């Protein structure tokens, strides 16, 4: 029981951590730039803002991880979390 409680507490901490990271990405993002992108790239950028997952965002965009990383820098989205 104690181990389960400890695990829940750790998971809660991680949930809060990822929420904080999401807020930072939302705050810094250049939304004008993002909204001006074609749907495939816009959706991928929005997904990255919400989840912080570079790998799947790149797959959504049809790019390599590194190419998508250059796009997220152009979009002003910090890599955080």
């Amino acid at each position, binding site marked *: 029981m104690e181990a389960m409680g400890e*695990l829940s507490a*750790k*998971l809660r901490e*991680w*949930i809060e*951590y*990822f929420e*904080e*990271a999401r807020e*930072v990405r939302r705050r*810094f993002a250049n939304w004008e730039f993002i909204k001006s992108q074609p749907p495939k790239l816009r959706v991928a950028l929005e997904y990255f803002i919400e*989840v*912080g*997952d*570079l*790998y*799947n965002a*790149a797959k959504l965009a049809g790019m*390599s*991880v*590194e*190419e998508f*990383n*250059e796009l997220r*820098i152009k979009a002003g989205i*910090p*890599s*955080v*979390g």
Partner: protein
Amino acid sequence: MSASAVADTSFLIDWARYSRSKLLFKLFDVVFIPESVLAELRSERTLTWVAQGLEEGKLAVLPELPDASREALQLVARSRRLPVRPVDYPEAYCLVVGRELGYAVLTENGGALAVRDYDPNFASVEVLRALDILYRLWKLGHVESFRRELEVYERETKRLYTARDLAKYGDAL
């Protein structure tokens, strides 16, 4: 301190942008790059950094090992059942290899960090972000100021660390 490490894409694409990236080899004799990670690298900057590292014997390409590959896929599936950010295949592969071969795992992926807290199979794996590496470089005297170096790193890579990340090194910042 591990003498060898395995790095994923999220770490390499940032680290290669850092002007003092060679400092990594003050901490590790060899850094392995899985084939699947290498396939994701496209920019001239990162590829040149990797090519130089390979030439100098500081980097090595890690082939896909079937057993590690299978376990990495199982880890990806397990991580998706929890309400935290899951791990994807490249980080999962690095975690499995890190555990099996005793290598430090270099990643910026928060999901990979979280795994150690919920999966006992990976609790002992050493997972390091650039923040941790810069701290160690400072402790060993390879950089003058941890805070200043971190500022340089964040500026050059457009990576940010949260207040929670920085709290771990509160006294040193």
